């Protein structure tokens, strides 16, 4: 089974033998890939029990838990890399979660859907209803994505948390990536998502 392209792009950023915490690790596909191809010592956090089971059966150490409440329990710089993929928009307190990720990991990888993409802008402008996309296919009242943001919003949040952006990749619907300038206006309209490699004030 091949890795989802956005996860493959994340995997590519991770050095061999790193200690990694994958927050919202799902069924453990990324962690297993990292363990087998990069000898990564990985840990996961996942909210949904069946997905935790899938991880445990793969021999992956995964904590059933919640990014909003459980990250505080980990010591500072406990991991080389902390990862939060396509999940920050579903946390209750994205700023706090980002702060914790930057504290726990020497580096942090965040991927997110871009609510500033032109199709979403057009949908709201012309349709007058909260946009539904393939990636964010929920009604406004039942969406788990309670804190959607644009690439520009996230860049501002990273800055206010004292994070430096080391790399930024634009992500399209197929999960393909290309390098982008995080603060440029283009990607904020054209990219469907983004992946950031950050580091805090360690």
């Amino acid at each position, binding site marked *: 089974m091949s890795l989802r392209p956005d996860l493959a792009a994340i995997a590519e950023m991770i050095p061999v033998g790193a200690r990694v915490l994958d927050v919202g690790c799902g069924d453990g596909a990324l962690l297993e890939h990292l363990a087998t191809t990069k000898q990564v010592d990985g840990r996961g956090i996942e909210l949904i*029990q069946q997905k935790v089971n899938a991880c*445990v*059966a793969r*021999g992956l*150490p*995964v*904590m059933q838990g919640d990014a909003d409440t459980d990250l505080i*329990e980990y*010591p500072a710089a406990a991991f080389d890399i902390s990862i939060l993929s396509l999940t920050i928009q579903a946390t209750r307190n994205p700023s706090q979660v980002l702060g914790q990720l930057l504290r726990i990991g020497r580096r942090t990888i965040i991927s997110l859907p871009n609510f500033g993409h032109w199709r979403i802008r057009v949908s709201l402008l012309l349709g007058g209803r909260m946009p539904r996309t393939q990636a964010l296919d929920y009604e406004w009242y039942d969406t788990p994505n309670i804190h959607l943001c644009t690439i520009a919003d996230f860049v501002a949040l990273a800055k206010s948390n004292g994070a430096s952006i080391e790399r930024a990749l634009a992500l399209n619907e197929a999960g393909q990536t290309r390098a982008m300038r995080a603060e440029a206006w283009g990607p904020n309209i054209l990219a469907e998502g983004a992946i950031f490699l950050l580091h805090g004030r360690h």
Partner: protein
Amino acid sequence: MAELPKFIRPVTAADAEIGHAVTLDTPLTLDCGKTLSPITIAYMTYGTLNAARSNAVLICHALTGDQFAASDHPVTGKPGWWETMVGPGKPIDTDRFFVICSNVVGGCMGTTGPAETNPETGKPYGLSFPVVTIRDMVRAQAMLLDHLGIEKVLSVIGGSMGGMQVLQWAASFPERVVSAVPIACAARHSAQNIAFHEVGRQAIMADPDWKNGTYQLHGTMPAKGLAVARMAAHITYLSEAALQRKFGRNLQNREQISFGFGPDFQIESYLRHQGMTFVDRFDANSYLYITRAMDYFDLAAEQGGTLAEAFHGSKTRFLIVSFTSDWLFPTSENKLVAHALNANAATVSFVEIETDRGHDAFLLDEPEMFTTVRGFLNAVANTVGA
């Protein structure tokens, strides 16, 4: 010469088959400073030890459990207490693993405990039996493994007090434990849990037939006190939701309330039954000793108050399991252990199983628990080639 007193073992297990038993001459030095010697350990095994001796799984039983995890109980004739979990093709698969389960020190199914004869006096120990701890239970199990020639176990697994032993194993003998599965337990006994145990002990000691623990010499047995202790404890093993679902306010074999104190409600009848059947298979003094061992359990206290220290540098792989409706050993207590392990960069998984069956869920048919334990154990076994 006066006629020798008649010794009555309070359990009907007096001549029951206790499985395997080994009497060891090596003294067991206890936390209280005393020693037990000789010491007999009763145990059961299931499955076959492989040539590399790498497929052993040690099961630790709970307060009122015993070595009969996966075979019929010799006194009650009921199936083993963990037959849903242990057996051929079960999550702890005896076709693959060699499972060992021993009766704890202080117990009453063949291992040295207060009901057994003190070799120094020729009488039952009674209250002269030294107070034992969870760590003492684990030391005795380690002696049993030495006797069986098993240096390392693939996993130590247990729920409730069994889970306490699992944690103690990982702390005391980390190099002997490849993986550990503490289920529905805690690294310390809470004030509320001590309180419930004290109610149980007081019920036993208030029974005139207890006779300061010497009931065996008098041919009596504090059955009423022990039954009340069991009834009170049993409530803590369930949940309000499960009690409501199973019993509600349903009346027991009657159309209306009796305006008396008989068992009007089904829940009363159920609890009375639990109490009555318990005394047939359990010794009252054992109940005092084992509840005390649980009360004294505080893994952090051994380490100057820091739980994380107990697992410092541990290479053991942990799977911690809790249940949403368990209020005796709630998820928060289980998670404290997980966090202490994470603080040590230990390899730890944690799952919280959704159920309304309370603490007892670990003994029941909980498919999600089975899936998790099966997956974890097989993954560990595959890694070490067991």
